[in-house]
């Protein structure tokens, strides 16, 4: 990674790109991301004045130049801070990552975009990377370092990992994440919390929300969500863990919609930052998990029991530690 060779410290300092759905619909994801990264020693700096990535489904469909121009402005804001940009959303990662990839490899595109940006006094140079929180945690922090920070091991929590499409595909734009057909890196980060990522049928299936499909054809996209939710219900999973606020919205609000049609789903949906937040000792309330549309008291009870168990253990160890000191 070029940033590491420039400056050893720089890789632990990133600009935080919020996007739309996290800050404006699931602020708990924003809060949890800020908290856990701070606890892991990663400095996140405000990317002041950033906009929508923009939403790839509509923008890439409508007008590629408008998409690239708006995306490049967000990247330029990070360039001006001399930092790589961190997203907490697969959609933003896909949109900004692909735009960055295209601008780096296609000089015609870059010239066109820079001509537009010059109208507001900006210039895209191409020296900031677009990172995703999961990919960053995997490569730059690592499951081992995360495990060492865990104070409330989430033993016995059965997790259905939902990778989401744009974290792994198109794979030509994603470096060093292993197989796009059978990825493991996200599962390893979940296991580091003490919870257990358990494989299931259709694990890599799309949530259905992307490409503008959710806004135009909600019913059809919910059928996609339903397919996965049925599998998870049968498998008695404790929760879904995702890395994308848009997939999050689809599964969380989707359960409420489907329940209105006679279904009975109560599977809590957590962004990875929220799962990790629980393992680092924050409560469901603090992390905004209770602000979800779908909540489940059984899950909440399990978490509280784990937190109490961890507290007791810490108290038992405290006198021993004091003696050692």
């Amino acid at each position, binding site marked *: 990674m070029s940033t590491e060779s420039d400056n050893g410290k720089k890789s632990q300092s990133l600009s935080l790109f919020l996007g739309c759905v996290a800050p*404006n619909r699931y*602020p708990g994801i*924003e809060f949890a991301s800020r908290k856990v990264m701070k606890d892991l020693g990663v400095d996140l700096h405000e990317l002041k004045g950033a906009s929508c990535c923009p939403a790839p489904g*509509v923008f*890439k469909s409508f007008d590629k130049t408008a998409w690239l121009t*708006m995306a490049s402005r967000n990247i330029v804001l990070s360039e001006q801070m001399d930092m790589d940009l961190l997203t907490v959303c697969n959609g933003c990662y896909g949109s900004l990552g692909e735009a960055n990839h295209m601008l780096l490899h296609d000089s015609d595109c870059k010239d066109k975009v820079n001509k537009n940006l010059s109208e507001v006094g900006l210039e895209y140079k191409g020296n900031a990377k677009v990172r995703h929180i999961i990919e960053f945690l995997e490569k730059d922090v690592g499951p081992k370092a995360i495990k060492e920070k865990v104070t409330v091991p989430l033993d016995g929590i059965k997790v259905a990992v939902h990778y989401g499409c744009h974290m792994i595909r198109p794979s030509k734009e994603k470096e060093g994440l292993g197989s796009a057909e059978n990825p493991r890196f996200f599962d390893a980060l979940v296991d580091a919390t003490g919870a257990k990522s358990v494989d299931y049928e259709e694990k890599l299936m799309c949530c259905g929300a992307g490409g503008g*499909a959710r806004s135009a054809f909600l019913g059809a996209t919910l059928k996609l969500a339903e397919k996965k939710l049925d599998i998870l219900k049968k498998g008695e999973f404790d929760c879904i863990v995702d890395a994308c606020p848009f997939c999050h919205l689809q599964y969380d609000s989707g359960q409420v919609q489907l329940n209105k049609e006679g279904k009975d789903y109560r599977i809590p949906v957590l962004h990875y930052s929220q799962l990790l937040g629980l393992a680092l000792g924050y409560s469901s309330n603090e992390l905004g998990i209770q602000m979800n549309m779908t909540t489940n008291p059984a899950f909440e009870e399990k978490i509280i029991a784990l937190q109490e168990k961890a507290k007791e253990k810490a108290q038992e160890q405290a006198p021993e530690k004091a003696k050692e000191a």
Partner: protein
Amino acid sequence: MTDPISSSEIDKNFFGELTQEKGLEKALLCFNCSGCSTGCPMKDIESKFDIKKYIRMAGLGMKNQILNDPYLWYCTTCYKCQERCPEGVLNVDTLLRMRTMAVREGIMLSAHREVAHFVLDTGHAVPINDSNRKKRLELGLSEVPPTVHMYPEAYEQVRKLLKVCEFDALTQKE
């Protein structure tokens, strides 16, 4: 869509126009293996959405049939087909280019026009609302995020860029 078409309905310039974007000419390499459609999660739900069909129709120049097909908008861009195509056909990228051509002919869904207008009006596709302002404060976050929502001059910059790209004219309400 399955009716036979007459040669008068074929647009010989369509493929050239479609493949102005680099790499999309690979659509001609499709040898009909159906790997794309077989793996498509949306086709499972809605059989009228068939990515292979658009790729094959492109080579034949079936412009009107493609651009006016409402199912063109069912793709969730999961990229599974593009990832798996043994010929390296850029299925999703090609479909997105077809959508762009449709939009230029004035064909767009009102839901998508609305998303475009949220971005034009606020800089966010999903702007803040009252209940989430409250949730942010409850969590100890700023009432609005430090994005274009907090910095009006940043929003003006976005607005100006979209104007430069003529995105406002493209998505103008009828």
